[in-house]
């Protein structure tokens, strides 16, 4: 089941990457980043069956960072939405080049 969990983690990570690359709605891009973080968590938990409890402790830190990232990122989205009235990232090109 460990290999199965690792393959599932790889599939979820790739799907999350695809979403970040392809979608243009900033909130859905954030959701896809959360999906990638969850895939990494799954890999950590699977490897904790091989290496030890450290894998599960790392998942805690990843979850904390994910919570902090979601809070700050959503605050940035709110602040951008006040300015442009949209969350489509095509319109945010001030820092592009």
């Amino acid at each position, binding site marked *: 089941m460990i290999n199965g*969990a690792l393959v599932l983690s*790889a599939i*979820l990570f*790739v799907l*999350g990457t695809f979403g970040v690359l392809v979608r243009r709605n900033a909130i859905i891009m954030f959701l896809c980043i959360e999906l990638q973080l969850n895939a990494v968590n799954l890999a950590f*938990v699977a490897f904790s069956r091989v290496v030890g409890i450290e894998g599960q402790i790392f998942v805690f830190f990843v979850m904390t960072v994910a919570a902090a990232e979601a809070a700050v990122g959503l605050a940035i989205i709110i602040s951008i939405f006040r300015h442009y009235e949209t969350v489509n990232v095509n319109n945010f090109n001030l820092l592009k080049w």
Partner: protein
Amino acid sequence: MTDILFYVFAAVAIGGALGVVLARSPVGSLLFMVTTLASLAAVFVLLEAHFLAAIQVIVYAGAIMVLFMFVIMLLNLGHDYERDLRGGVFGVLSFAVIGLMAGLLARQFGGPDGTDRVGPGAASIDAAIAEHGAIGAIAEPLYTTYVVPFEITGILLLVAIVGAIVLAKRRVQP
């Protein structure tokens, strides 16, 4: 039995992830994400990480997804059904990128000959759970060996709270 359950929950998780990527409205995407998170919690249970499964449901599916839902409702994006997939050269390039990534990950994670990796982890975790319980098995190293990263995590959360308030606050004109 656990193998069958694992495949069922893995299928639900992959379907939910596809829904996250392909759903038209942000709210639909969010609900698919909750499905994925719940089935990942079930997979955590099958991998004997019971406390992490509880945290996954309470913190991730409970708190963080509700935060996303708050923002979607606050910005009134629930009716945002416009097609927003990138196409053209960028779409082809992203397919190439994810193909490459899937190949590399499959090579890395597939295992040497299809059998599960073996190590001392499962036995040591089972012994720690038998001695301290499911929560104590994680809490004991978290508060001894990894206490410094734990405290730094507290500072990180504080900084995130302050940053979120400063960013989202409406500027008051003097």
